């Protein structure tokens, strides 16, 4: 029931938002909707945590043997929590932003939330695909209607990229479907499809392109910096904190277990791509003068590391990835919030135009520094846990041939990450004030409160990660069990 509610509440309230006329009412209503989703999620974890509450199954398209099947495993529940937590925060942090046709904006945002929840919970391939697109379409509309100057061309590129990816995945889904025992879209049937190594290989790439575009992984990333820069802040937050996780979840839930042999065979190739992406994005991030673009490129680097860890197929790497999915969502949300505050205060996000904010706005600087530390994975922050586990897993990977090399290169990426993050902090917040930052004031109480939530989440995961690790323990074990490739390789040989 919880699983169904998490989708229904944003869906219905989102549709209702289109009908509300007054701006005040729209904002209050959508905030209330987001908060109630959050409360449902909290209740689902704290009170109704029994698996039965996170499972829902109903007949849907009998002709196709596809059912409306939802189930929350550890990873799914955690990502739902992240989504439920982020939405009120996003709404509050962009509370004062003026939108024309505000009801459409919030309606689309809530629809995207419903899509996200669906993607995280769907256990039926066709349903997964439906929600995957449901999450995409509203964001496309949001970005092209409320974005920056070049929004139309930029988001169109984004749309076409992701749409091609999705469609290729659809072909893959159909092919696997045709080869499952008893023709079913159910995820368990997909796991049992028993495809040959050759079939798996090309299906693997069909799926991978869809996930890689969404994440994005080098070289499928070119839409990302432009889109992040041009989108309205709220949409950028959704894109980078939540949508990206759809891709990672796709890798973990659909790619590894459904195509274990191909994942085993192609894992290293993809790791190399991802590592290339890490270094490449980090180098570009170092050269950026635009804070938004810098954060966007840093996101490519972070996601690249997750991708490497996924294909290490090691328990601690998988656990690390899942923790990092949560942490990265929180951290990048914090980053965007700081960037948004700076943009609102000074009207620019050019690093070279800013400086010395720390003298005028100490509270903002305090929050920024902690978020920046989390971004470069300092111990006691959430990202440290994730990155540590991921690196441990990559190094100990039995699957990867070049674990050490890949880990070392990815490690360079982490160092570069520290370089550009700290460099940005130094240039923007410290040093001398200039004409622009001279008259700056500190952030309001409301902004402090929102940032404090972020910091709270960063520290809780960073200091006491055990409950989170427990939550994803089961999921990572079952992924590994389903993608254990050795018995399958044996069987294929005979």
């Amino acid at each position, binding site marked *: 029931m919880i699983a169904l509610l998490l989708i229904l509440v944003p869906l219905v309230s989102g549709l209702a938002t289109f009908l509300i006329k007054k701006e005040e009412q729209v904002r209050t209503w959508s905030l209330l909707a987001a908060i109630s989703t959050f409360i449902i999620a909290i209740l689902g974890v704290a009170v109704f945590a029994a698996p039965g509450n996170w499972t829902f199954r109903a007949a849907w398209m009998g*002709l196709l043997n596809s059912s409306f099947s939802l189930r929350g495993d550890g990873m799914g529940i955690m990502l739902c929590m992240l989504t439920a937590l982020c939405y009120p925060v996003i709404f509050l942090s962009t509370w004062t932003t003026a939108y024309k046709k505000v009801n459409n904006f919030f309606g689309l945002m809530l629809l995207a939330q419903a899509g996200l929840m669906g993607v995280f919970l769907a256990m039926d391939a066709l349903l997964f695909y439906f929600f995957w*697109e449901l999450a995409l379409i509203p964001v496309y509309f949001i970005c092209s209607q409320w974005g920056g100057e070049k929004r139309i061309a930029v988001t169109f590129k984004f749309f076409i990229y992701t749409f091609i990816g999705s469609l290729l995945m*659809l*072909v893959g889904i159909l092919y696997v479907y045709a080869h499952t025992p008893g023709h079913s879209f159910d995820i368990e049937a997909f796991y049992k499809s028993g495809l040959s190594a050759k079939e798996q290989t090309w299906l693997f790439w069909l799926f991978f392109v869809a996930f890689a575009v969404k994440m994005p992984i080098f070289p499928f990333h070119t839409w990302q910096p432009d889109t992040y820069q041009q989108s309205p802040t709220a949409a950028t937050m959704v894109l980078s904190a939540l949508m990206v996780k759809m891709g990672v979840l796709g890798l973990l839930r659909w790619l590894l277990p459904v195509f274990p042999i191909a994942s085993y065979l192609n894992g290293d190739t993809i790791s190399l791509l991802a590592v290339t992406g890490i270094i490449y994005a980090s180098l570009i991030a170092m050269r950026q003068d635009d804070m938004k673009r810098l954060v966007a490129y840093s996101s490519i680097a972070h996601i690249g590391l997750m991708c490497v860890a996924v294909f290490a197929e090691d328990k601690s790497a998988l656990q690390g990835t899942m923790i990092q999915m949560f942490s990265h969502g929180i951290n990048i949300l914090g980053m965007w919030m700081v960037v948004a505050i700076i943009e609102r205060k000074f009207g620019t996000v050019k690093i070279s135009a800013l400086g010395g904010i720390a003298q005028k706005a100490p509270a903002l600087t305090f929050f920024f520094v902690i978020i920046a530390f989390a971004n470069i994975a300092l111990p006691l922050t959430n990202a440290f846990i994730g990155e540590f586990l991921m690196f441990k897993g990559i190094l100990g990977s039995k699957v990867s041939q070049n674990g050490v090399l890949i880990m070392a290169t990815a490690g360079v990426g982490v160092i570069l990450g520290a370089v550009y993050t700290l460099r940005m902090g130094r240039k923007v917040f410290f040093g001398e004030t200039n004409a622009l930052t001279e008259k700056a004031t500190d952030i309001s109480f409301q902004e402090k409160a929102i940032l404090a939530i972020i910091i709270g989440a960063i520290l809780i995961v960073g200091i006491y990660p055990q409950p989170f690790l427990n939550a994803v323990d089961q999921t990572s074990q079952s992924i590994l069990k389903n993608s254990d490739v050795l018995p399958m390789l044996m069987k294929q040989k005979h």
Partner: protein
Amino acid sequence: MNAVLLSGLLGVVMMFASFLFRTKAPVRVLAILGIVLLLVANILESKGLRLFHLDTTRFLSFSSYALFFNTIAIACTLVYFLISSKDMQQVGNHYAEYFALIFFILTGIFLVTSFTNLLMLFLGIEIISIPLYILTGSAKKDLKSNEAALKYLLMGAFSTGIMLLGIAFIYGATGTFEIGKMNIAGLMKSNLLTTGMLLLLFSMCFKVSVAPFHFWTPDVYDGAPNVFTSFMATIVKVGIFAGFLHLFYSAFDKVTLQWKFWLAILAALTLFVGNITAVFQQSVKRMLAYSSIAQAGFMLFALVALNETAHEGLLLYAIAYSLATIGIFGIIAKMTDYSFDGFNGLATHQPLVALCVTIFMLSLAGIPLSAGFLAKFYMLKAVIQSGDYLWLVIFGVLMAAVSAYYYFRVIQAMYFKQGPNHFSGISTFEKYVLVGICVLIIFTGLFPNVIFGWLYF
């Protein structure tokens, strides 16, 4: 049989309606009542209640599939009448006659979906075509319309000739017109039969505008009055497709292995030509003409696959594609400028209409949650199930992504650009119809089971 006779009869009634009624409103009401009557009669027949008993076994056989398909065609025509019948007044003075011609076309479609005899196929195609030539040229004072009609007539007559030649060759090879009695498997090597089938295939391809036999389509669709273009591009097209599928499924299924490859090539070519050319169009109407070629490419998937899924897929395609296209043409007919720029800022002036256009476009592009998605999905599934031609599936998918480009251009224009209002004269009733079409599209997309459950009665 109910539907065939009744639609013919209704056509005759409509011809006389212009003498009986001086004003146009009763004519319209009569036509709508007629189509409802037709729908009821057809549903009754599928329940086993025949109003007439004629032994047509050597000519026509009304399988349940044909009846379902007829139901869809009639229901779509009903929707078409509801949204477009007022706009027919603008075309010319022969208001009642237009309805008569449409009823005759429906008769032709019913023949084409249920023939068991190649002569009946020919007759059906001709009954469809000749009224279409007239409708194309019905805007008598419009040069473009005249040119289109002439072009269509010449090309159409030519392809009819080819079809007749093909049927004659097949007769020569098999000694019968009845597809049930043809010993096709025994004559596989016969050159006469192969040539005949090839000619028949070509002429059918012409009728449904499959590349490279599509050259008439953009000009005719563009030149014909909007209201008739929408009928031509939807109900007529999927009607002939149903006949096409019927021909290949029931008559030539034993030799299709050889054909499949060439049909796949034709499908790929059609998708390519239709989509790529549509990208470069400046007028939404011409874009839709080319996109209808592209959609024909997808419908050809049903012929490549030739299995049960393909049958259901074509039914779904008929619903999804017809509803969306009828809807969008209903709107275009009320626009003074139907270039892409004409749609600029429509969302500001007419939010509801813009929303409807968006849903039509999303459905045509095949975005999930819409009927169009499921239709495409079924087509892809059918081909994948048949086992071969995965390249075609992937190619189709890439082309669907291309199609998103031009369908989304309309959405972009409406929502993200500003411009003067080029849209006027929509009545409240027509708005309800538009919304109704949208609801149907989304409902079909979400719960195709219900639609199928209802269609299979």
